[in-house]
């Protein structure tokens, strides 16, 4: 126990993160369960409106700041970056451990706010509601989120330095795995966007204590200034969540198609393009907030520009599978689910970037469905895909492939049933964040709640069979999937300093046509 809490081994810290985030995800999921049960009927009968507002706020805060943003970088990124780079550890191992402690401290503060009476501002903390009107525990919660942000900054700095300075001999930039490229882009956003949120939230806390008037129009401040600051972080934060997922999928699809990635340079460059353009689109959250027509037009245009590199990703994934040897293993099912849901989620994002359409759809269930499709559909599918892909490497064991596939399909179907109805609800004009709603929306709301039960089963299943594999699973061997990449050249799980002999890279990445065939044979496979 003590050796775990003082470890500087990136692999152990990654597992600490995995454990912590699983707890947060479970908590956020339970909150979502209560929300969906409440919304099955039109009236607010299970919980009061006041409680409902606290439920969706905490669901949002916990899921966004304590699961979605850190999920892939701090777990898979932390575990895999040094392995993929052929390095013994991250550049600053002690800073890495400190990040985890800061993250846990932030989580505890937020949980304290929750236990002490909750928070009812929505995860967006919009002023002046959060500064003046809310009588919930805003200060505790924003300090918790501030600490989580600080932890993100540390992680981002660590990744950037590691990728720049700790690559194995011969591992040039254009030989980096696409997973590393996407984490590099993510780290840039983490380091350059998070401080803006951090300061903004501190100002909210100061404003609540001292009422200086930073966001108060009567004192010379502006509530819109808050929105600009908030979205300057929180829109790029969307790319913090999705870029690592894209990185995971870019590893999975070549492996299970036995092909080189289609347009490696395009995929790598599109990660950077998304990161850069992601900084320039925050205003599309404010089309109806009263910013100038000119500003709205510019932000709309830039938002469409981000869609081009995203389109490149989808096209390249399809191209990679084309003329390949496509093998529908559990990770691959998740990867394909990601591609489908990311396309739907990204496409509906185009609808929201379109000015006239956004006037109707802004702040309705359409928005809720859109970002859940990207975040839950996309990001979580990629997270689970990555978890299943590298689970044999991390644990040294094989899980039940049959149950894996059942869970993946269950999740995909449950997801569609939960969120497709919400697109319709939003188009019909139901605003989001409402504890009760007019009865004409009840059919679709109930359908969505029913879908959520299937979704919940899809989340619980992997927890069961992955844990079971630790006890009963067959040994995985070093490279069960026949994958390329340095992480597969060491034992499963890897030794404390990753490689017994320093790796030297002499060939391009993803040389699947010449890679060894998988040692893993699933049900009905060849």
């Amino acid at each position, binding site marked *: 126990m003590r050796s775990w809490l003082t470890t500087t081994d990136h692999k152990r810290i990654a597992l600490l993160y995995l454990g912590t985030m699983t707890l947060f995800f479970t908590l956020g999921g339970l909150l979502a369960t209560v929300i969906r049960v409440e919304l099955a009927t039109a009236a*607010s009968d299970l919980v009061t*409106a006041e409680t409902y*507002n606290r439920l969706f706020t905490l669901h949002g805060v916990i899921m966004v700041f304590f699961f979605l943003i850190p999920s892939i970088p701090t777990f898979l990124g932390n575990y895999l970056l040094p392995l993929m780079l052929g390095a013994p550890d991250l550049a600053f191992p002690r800073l890495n451990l400190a990040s985890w402690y800061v993250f846990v401290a932030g989580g505890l503060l937020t949980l304290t706010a929750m236990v002490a009476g909750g928070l*009812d501002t929505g995860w967006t903390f*919009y002023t*002046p*509601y959060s500064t*003046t*009107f*809310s009588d919930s525990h805003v200060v505790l919660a924003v300090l918790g989120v501030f600490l989580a942000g600080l932890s993100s900054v540390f992680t981002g700095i660590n990744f950037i330095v590691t990728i720049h300075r700790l690559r194995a001999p011969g591992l040039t930039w254009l030989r980096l795995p696409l997973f590393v490229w996407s984490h590099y882009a993510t780290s840039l956003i983490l380091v350059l966007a998070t401080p803006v949120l951090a300061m903004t939230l501190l100002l909210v806390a100061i404003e609540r204590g001292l009422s200086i008037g930073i966001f*108060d*129009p009567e004192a010379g401040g*502006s509530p*819109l200034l808050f929105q600009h600051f908030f979205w300057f972080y929180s829109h790029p934060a969307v790319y913090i969540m999705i870029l690592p997922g894209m990185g995971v999928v870019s590893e999975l699809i070549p492996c299970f198609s036995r*092909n*080189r990635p*289609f*347009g490696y340079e*395009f995929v790598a460059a599109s990660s950077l393009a998304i990161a850069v353009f992601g900084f320039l689109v925050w205003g599309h959250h404010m089309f*109806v907030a*009263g910013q100038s*027509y000119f500003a*709205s037009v510019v932000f*709309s245009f830039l938002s*469409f520009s981000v869609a*081009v590199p995203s*389109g*490149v990703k989808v*096209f390249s994934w*399809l191209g990679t*599978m084309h*003329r*390949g*040897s*496509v*093998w529908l293993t559990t990770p691959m099912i998740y990867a394909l689910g990601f*591609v*489908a849901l990311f396309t739907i989620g990204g*496409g509906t994002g*185009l609808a929201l*970037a379109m*000015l*006239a*359409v*956004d*006037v*109707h759809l*802004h702040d*309705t269930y359409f928005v809720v469905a859109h970002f859940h499709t990207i975040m839950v559909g996309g990001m979580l599918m990629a997270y689970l895909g990555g978890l299943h892909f590298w689970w044999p490497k991390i644990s040294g064991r094989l899980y039940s492939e049959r149950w894996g596939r059942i869970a993946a399909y269950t999740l995909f179907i449950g997801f569609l049933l939960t969120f497709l109805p919400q697109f319709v609800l939003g*188009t*019909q*004009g139901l*605003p989001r*964040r*409402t504890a*009760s709603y*007019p009865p004409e929306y009840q059919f679709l709301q109930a359908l969505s709640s029913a879908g959520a039960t299937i979704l919940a089963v899809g989340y619980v299943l992997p927890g069961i069979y992955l844990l079971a594999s630790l006890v009963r699973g067959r040994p995985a061997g070093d490279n069960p999937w026949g994958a390329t990449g340095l992480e597969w050249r060491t034992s499963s799980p890897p030794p404390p300093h990753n490689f017994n002999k320093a790796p030297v890279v002499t060939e391009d990445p993803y040389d*699947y*046509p010449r890679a060894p*065939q998988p040692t893993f044979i699933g049900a009905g496979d060849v």
Partner: protein
Amino acid sequence: MILGIPFELLPAAASATSGAVDVAVFLVFAVIGVVSLGVVAAMVYIVVRYRRRPGNLTGRGHDPATIWRTELGWCALTATVFLGLFTVGAAFFDRIERVPADADALDVAVTAKRWMWSFHHPNGRRELSQLHVPAGRVVRLHLASEDVIHSFYVPAFRLKHDVVPGWLRTAWFRATAPGTYALACAEYCGTEHAVMRADVVVMEPHAYDRWLAQGDDSRPPLAAAGRALFQRLDCGACHESHRRRRAPPLEGLYGRPVALRDGSSVIADDDYIRRSILRPDADVVADYQGGVMPTYAGLVDDDELLLLVAYIRSLADAEGVSP
């Protein structure tokens, strides 16, 4: 109708701009549908056609020239489609945003307050949680919030506009068909946000006139109430015509550009008038001295500001003493 259940993707369109929004919605939904189904179909085809089987255990890849050609082609294709969507969205948005300068437009003051909507008609009639308007006439909404940010959302009109404390915003609609339409608050505003709803009752013009006449006549019209307040606060001491050297004239001011002392210029809209009452030295008009007018912050509340704005608006077409 789907499976016998009444089903409509969009609420029945009922305003002059909702048709345009619907065209944009269907356009972008069609693009989303084609792309999503296309991607799924392509995946299914590839998964079946190139499935792993004896004889196909290794991918066959693509040559770099093909990759570069198709990737660049794909970028060009998507960029073109996106540019088209952007243009349509921006063009229709312009129609929604631009408040028409109709002579017979109806000006309604809207005050949002947790958690109700109140409306103030030009003849002084007030109503809560119900807004009666005539069909076929432009209704200009002057939106003010007394506390937090709310959002004025009428799905049937495809109209949404945030109501931000500290600002006066203007939005508009022209209802096309009589009926009752739901108005909801779309920006989360606290405990009872979900029930911060109201009905917009669109009536035939003659029915609306009758309704208006039935109202409680004891209340003065909006502009008259504003004029009374204007006099009570003694604004005329400087702003009425014979004292023009101290303060700029208000006749013909509303909606027109104003040259400021620092060389810039602003449109005299609701928000400018509000700001000038609360912070007179923020935008001093060209040829006038700053530091003359005291601030009225704390002396007039949001409702009263709407009255003053209504009065100044009523002077929009009055003849000023032109210099």
